[in-house]
């Protein structure tokens, strides 16, 4: 009787060992795929691991990793779905989940939602996470044109933000270009581009418009109405292009200013899970 029980226990132990070894192999495959930037395949492997994991916490961790891989693939909806599952399995993943949710919201161009998630992290216990979230929050607010709040977010994080606040101040000191003024100036070919500092584009615009206006007057004088119609069609395109270009150049200028400032604030920061700890989620930040 005793031998029977011992054999049974041995069988169970061997089975569990084999199961955990298989899990290890699958885990390694998923991690390798993730490291090869095959995020879609990695996400599927993590989902497979989650479905097979016997413990809720492990399931949650694998779902979080699947969500992370979908986020890297810019599949925000699937990423959020995986995070929902992860958080229902292990509510402690809600904090690191907010990081991914913020990223997903930005991928969907929903900056209000992203602001909410990053804003919820600035009081967390992890200093690196706080700095990451604060910088992201500042970048979102700069994009909204709310420079004071952006600076406040950086200062509230308590990180060494002197260079970051300097970048924000430099942005504040600069002036945006008015697209309306750019468009109005574009009535004079090239002047709209010149207003936003695009002098080479302005010159090309002026030359093309001048040539075609000359062509129009010349063909009209010679009463060559067929050629006049063709040249007029092209001139109309160039002329409307001058006005559109004046407006677009101003928008480009403003966008460039924001992008430069945001790049300074965000830097090359990123985060990734510590693969050695998987399926426990421990994030490693790089600034």
């Amino acid at each position, binding site marked *: 009787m005793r031998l029977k029980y011992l054999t049974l226990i041995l069988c169970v132990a061997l*089975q569990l060992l084999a199961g955990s070894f298989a899990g290890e192999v699958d885990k390694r495959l998923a991690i390798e795929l993730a490291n090869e930037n095959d995020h879609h395949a990695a996400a599927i492997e993590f989902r497979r691991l989650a*479905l097979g994991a016997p413990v809720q916490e492990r399931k949650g961790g694998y779902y979080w990793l699947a969500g992370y891989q979908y986020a890297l693939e810019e599949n925000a909806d699937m990423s959020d779905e995986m995070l929902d599952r992860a958080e229902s399995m292990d509510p402690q993943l809600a904090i690191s989940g907010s990081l991914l949710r913020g990223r997903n919201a930005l991928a969907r161009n929903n900056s209000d939602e992203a602001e909410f998630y990053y804003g919820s992290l600035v009081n967390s216990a992890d200093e690196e996470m706080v700095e990451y979230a604060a910088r992201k929050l500042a970048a979102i607010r700069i994009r909204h044109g709310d420079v004071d709040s952006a600076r406040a977010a950086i200062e509230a994080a308590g990180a060494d933000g002197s260079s970051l606040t300097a970048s924000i101040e430099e942005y504040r000191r600069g002036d945006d270009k008015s697209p309306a003024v750019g468009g109005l100036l574009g009535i004079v070919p090239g002047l709209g581009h010149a207003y936003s500092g695009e002098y080479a584009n302005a010159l090309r615009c002026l030359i093309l418009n001048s040539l075609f206006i000359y062509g129009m007057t010349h063909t009209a004088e010679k009463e060559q109405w067929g050629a006049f119609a063709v040249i007029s069609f092209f001139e109309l395109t160039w002329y409307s292009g001058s006005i559109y270009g004046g407006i677009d150049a101003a928008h480009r200028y403003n966008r460039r200013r924001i992008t430069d400032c945001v790049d300074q604030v965000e830097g090359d920061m990123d985060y990734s899970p510590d693969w050695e700890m998987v399926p426990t989620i421990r994030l490693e930040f790089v600034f």
Partner: protein
Amino acid sequence: MWLSPLFSHFANAQSPAWALARELFENGDWVASRREIRRVLLADPENREARILADVCSLKTGQADSASLERLEQAVEMPNVELETRALAAYEAGREYWRMGDSEKAYDLFVYAYRNTEDNPLFLRAGCSLFLLMKGKPELKTVSPSLTLQLKSSRRLFDWSLQQECMLPEEDAGTGILAKPGEWTVALYRSQVSPAIGMRCSCVPSCSEYFLLACRKHGLLGFPIQADRFFREPSIVQQRQNPIEMGGVIKYSDPLEAHDFWLGEGVDR
């Protein structure tokens, strides 16, 4: 009784592939779902539901052969397969027959799916597909007057987005009238000018592609947008920003989105 956790462990060890395959199918990830279903079929070749879903995935990814379609059609007759799976098989087979121009077969299969499914999205899709099929083939309206009347009264359920989804690709309304001058210009350029001078544009998308995209998105405003691209092209090349290697040649990325983001969704639609 005490062995139940062990059994559940064994059961879980068996089920993930099938569960994952079904999840991926529900997500519409046809390629991955097909791969997972094949994994399931290797372990259990008699799994009929898996076979049906594999055939649906093959249809969705354009990898189906005539045998897949036949199997889907036959699945409707299989009593030991879940009714919901049979309805799905009928709907997908119906769409394929519709695409192939066999309206009668498509009609029968859509009707089967419409009458047998309890899944609301599939019910709506089957109904909308039937509605659109009958719109193109009015003679089908006489086959079942009660069904025709039912679909007519449900018409308001088939909103624009559902109709777009259920429409066959060639029936797509296409681009707006304001995009036509741009499309004609590009067609003329590509057939008459481009073969003579070759690919000269240094940007991605090329100027003709950029113009086409601009016209399709913004109608006649595509002309000034393209003129602005011509003014800027030499500067883009000179600044060497966002280089992309294409076929051994370095080109520079200049997407339309970077120059019309302030226009919103477009004026043409």
